[in-house]
Each structure stands twice: as structure tokens, then as C-alpha cells.
């Protein structure tokens, strides 16, 4: 389907199919798991979320030139919370039964990652009409996914379709599917099937589809609502902690053979990260000692400069030594790490 960017129809298609918030982006897990004990609950939750999403998107988009960048997150929270309160009161008045069965999860729409994520990623940067339809598309995608999940759980767990029991099926229904473990189980199976389909298509066509967050890489932040706004702060700090640890380990290590190997204690995280990210470069550099200086300096800035002249003096000897023992600080650290891990494994 080829649709022009940011038109209402394209937005609807995008929200329901292409970037389905539950199945593709894996956002908004809490309500997805909690309220899908029946298909009706799924529809109720999905539609109320859709209303909040569309209206919040519309208003945030209208106000996007007024809201200062620094306080946009509190502003979003206030706007979203106001709409959630309105929906909450309306539901209490007009659909009391549904309100009762959804319970605390209606006010908790405020912290639904989907709404916050769309506000930050789309509505704050785009025109009101497109944002409104983006909200509706995303909301309907969410509704669809959780209704299907509610339908499955209701059918297996209580032997009913939309509250109507089928024959004597309820007597044999494994109730665990409408209890907490069933929620995790059904969602896990649904996402597994989706991942399998994507893997098959990829293998057949030889292309890589944009799988979002089902892969291990970056999964630390993938399901966090704040990841759009924190811009990987978590990962940055984690990298910093890792670098600190490595620097300490390097400082603690006795500097036996070469003074050049001691790493300065104030290693910058970015450097170590770069060094970690390019193990391949280091290896190629080792194989060709003539090329050592430029590549190494680039890959591992953390290394002090004294090493360069030393290496330049005797490239031939260097090569022999390198094949015997890991040379650079980076290599030694890595060796140390593997040794540590092996030790841990042995201890276990």
C-alpha cells in the first residue's frame, strides 16, 4: 500500500497495521495484560484509550508551538491526565458495569506508554489533523490487538464468546487462561508467532524487516515509556558505570611488563565504548603491525600515547609477541574478563 505521508488514511493504516503499538512496538503492556480477561473488556479499554489518545494528540499538536521544549513532559502529563479524568467520569456515568470491571486501569491510562510515546514521537512534531488520525489509528491498532487477545483468553479460559458461554465448554475450560499466568502466556505466544512469521519472510526474501524490540539488542530501554524522552540516558549511564569498573580493574592490575598498558583512571565512557565496539579493527591491526598506530589510536583512545613509539620501534618483534600474548590494554582487559567469567562459571 502506497499512501502519501501524514494523510489521515496513511496514519490509520500505520497505526493499525504497520506500527501496531501492541504487537510491533510492544508498548502499553500493563493494560494489555491486565484487562484482557474478556473480549468485551478489551474493546472497552481499547476504545477509551483511543479517545484519550486522539484528543491528547490533537491538543498537544495544537499547542506544540506554545509549549516550551524544557517543560514539555509535564505539559503532556497534564493534558493527558485531564482527558483521562474526563473519560473516567464519563464511563462512570454511562457504562458503570464496564467501569467496574476495568477498575483501576482506567485512571492508569495516564501512564500508558502508547499515549506518552505518540505525544513525544508524533504529535509534538506534526500538524493537528494528522496527529488526530495518528491517535485514532494507534488507538484502533491497540483496540484490535487487545480485543483479539481478550477473545482468545475468554474462549480458552472461560469457554465463552463475548460473554456467551458455548454449550458445556465452560466446564472444561482451563481457568488459568483468565488468571494472571495466562495473560503472559497468550501474549508470549502471540509475539512468538509474529516473530516467526517475520523470520520466515526475511529468510525467504533475503531482506531484513524492521523488527523493533523483540531482539535482545537495546531491550533494556525498549519497553520503557520514557525512552523517547530520556534518549538512552539509561544506556549511557550504564556504559559509564561499565567504563568505571573497567578503569578500576585496569588500575588494580599490577603493571608488570609495560607502563604503557596502565589505563588512566578517568577513562571517558565514549572512548571505551568505541573501543569495545571495534574489536574487529583491533584484530586486523594486530595482523598488520605496520598499520597499528592509526587504527589502534582510533579504536582505543583510552590508550596512552606512549605506546605508539614503542610499537613503531620494533614492529617485527611486536608481531611475534602479539601472537603469544594479548598486547593492548583493551585486549588484556578482554582476556581478564573472559578469565573472570570462566572462573565464575567454574564456581557455579
Amino acid at each position, binding site marked *: 500500500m502506497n499512501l502519501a505521508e501524514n494523510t489521515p488514511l496513511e496514519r490509520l493504516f500505520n497505526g493499525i497495521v504497520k506500527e501496531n503499538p501492541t504487537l510491533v512496538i510492544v508498548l502499553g*503492556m500493563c493494560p494489555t495484560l491486565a484487562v484482557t480477561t474478556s473480549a468485551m473488556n478489551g474493546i472497552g479499554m481499547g476504545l477509551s484509550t483511543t479517545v484519550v489518545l486522539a484528543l491528547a494528540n490533537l491538543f498537544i499538536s495544537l499547542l506544540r508551538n506554545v509549549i516550551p521544549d524544557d517543560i514539555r513532559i509535564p505539559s503532556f502529563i497534564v493534558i493527558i*491526565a485531564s482527558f483521562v479524568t474526563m473519560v473516567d467520569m464519563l464511563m462512570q456515568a454511562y457504562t458503570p458495569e464496564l467501569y467496574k470491571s476495568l477498575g483501576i486501569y482506567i485512571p*492508569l491510562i495516564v501512564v500508558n506508554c502508547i499515549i506518552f510515546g505518540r505525544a513525544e514521537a508524533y504529535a509534538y512534531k506534526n500538524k493537528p489533523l494528522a496527529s488526530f488520525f495518528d491517535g485514532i489509528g494507534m488507538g484502533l491498532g491497540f483496540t484490535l490487538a487487545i480485543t483479539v487477545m481478550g477473545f482468545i483468553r475468554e474462549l480458552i479460559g472461560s469457554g465463552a464468546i463475548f460473554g456467551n458461554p458455548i454449550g458445556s465448554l465452560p466446564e472444561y475450560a482451563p481457568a488459568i487462561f483468565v488468571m494472571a*499466568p495466562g495473560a503472559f502466556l497468550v501474549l*508470549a505466544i502471540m509475539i*512468538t508467532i509474529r516473530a516467526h512469521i517475520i523470520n520466515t519472510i526475511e529468510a525467504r526474501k533475503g531482506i531484513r524487516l524492521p523488527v523493533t524490540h523483540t531482539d535482545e539488542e537495546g531491550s533494556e530501554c525498549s519497553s520503557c515509556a*520514557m525512552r523517547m524522552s530520556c534518549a538512552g540516558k*539509561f544506556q549511557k549511564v550504564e556504559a559509564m558505570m561499565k567504563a568505571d569498573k573497567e578503569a578500576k580493574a585496569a588500575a588494580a592490575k599490577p603493571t608488570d611488563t609495560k607502563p604503557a598498558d596502565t589505563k588512566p583512571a578517568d577513562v571517558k565512557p565514549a572512548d571505551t565504548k568505541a573501543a569495545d565496539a571495534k574489536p574487529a579493527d583491533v584484530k586486523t591491526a594486530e595482523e598488520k603491525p605496520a598499520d597499528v598506530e592509526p587504527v589502534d589510536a582510533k579504536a582505543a583512545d583510552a590508550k596512552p600515547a606512549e605506546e605508539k613509539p614503542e610499537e613503531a620501534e620494533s614492529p617485527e618483534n611486536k608481531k611475534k609477541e602479539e601472537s603469544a600474548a594479548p598486547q593492548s590494554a583493551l585486549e588484556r582487559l578482554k582476556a581478564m574478563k573472559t578469565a573472570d567469567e570462566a572462573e565464575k562459571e567454574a564456581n557455579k
Partner: protein
Amino acid sequence: MSNTTLISILIMSMLINNVVLSQFLGICPFLGVSKKVDTASGMGAAVIFVITLASIICGLIYHFILHPLGLDYLNTIVFILVIASLVQFVEMFLKKAMPALYKALGVYLPLITTNCAVLGAVLLNVQNEYSVIQGIVNGIATSVGFAISIIILAGLREKMQYNRIPKAVQGFPFTMFTASLMAIAFCGFSGLK
């Protein structure tokens, strides 16, 4: 309010109605930050810290300002703003006053603002008509329950890191399957009632 009710609130919120495994609050950090036991315990500690503070402050606000003035319908807005600003203040305060604790918790604090476990615990306090003290106990129990389950999951994931897993199940679905089994185990606590 006798001691038995406090203890029963404690057990109920910590084990029987475990915040993650039976109420599905705070799923995002539960699945996202549970790769290593270190980070998981850091997150757990930060959540205990914030939920306890939030249930104290929100309890006081609700019982002495919102409820007497008949402003109950403002609950959601007020609570989420209180939590968001609380997290900011806690971060700034820790940075100045307790750098060591800040270093341990600092990473996780901004992630907690939209953790639904915090808002959920506070809203449940209101919904169950707990007094301030009961609310605080409930907050502590809820957050300890969160810490327990996230640390267990991280331990399991660390152990299973090197297992051979089919490609389609790797990552997110695998964590969900693990969580499902944990939830079955936690169902056993309902016998404690």
C-alpha cells in the same frame, strides 16, 4: 485499625496480589530492566524508595486536602503531578545530599515517573479507602513485592542467558514465558488468604 489488618495488608500486597505478577502494574521495567541482577536490584531499591515516599505524600494530600474539599475527581491529575515532581526532587536532593545513594539509584529514578506501579499503588490506597498509615504500609509492601519479582526474574534470565532458544522465541517472548511460570508459582500464595 489493629495490627492484624496492617499485617494482612502487608502479606496481601507483597505476595498474594503481587503488583507485577497478578496486577500487571510496572510491567515495563519488569521486562525491560531485568537482564542482570545488579540492575534489577537497583531498580527495585529505587521503586521501594519512590513508592514509599509517594504513598506518604499522596496519602497526606488526599486525606487532608482533596477529600475534605470534595475534589476527589482531581485525584489522577494531582497524583501523577506529585509523583513526577517528587521523582525530580528526589533526584536533585540525592545528587546534592547523598551522592553515593544517587550513584546507586540515579539511573533508575527518571525511569520511574511513568512506572504505573507507583500511580497504581497510590490509586489503590484511595480505592480501598486505606488510612494514611495503612496506605504507607500498602505502598511499602507493593514496592517490596515489585523488587522481589524483578530480582527473581533477573536471576532466572541470568541463568538462562546461554541456553539455546529457538530464534522466534528469543528476547521478549522468552521473558514473557518465564514471567508466566513465575506467575503460576505466585498463584500458590493465594492459599495464604
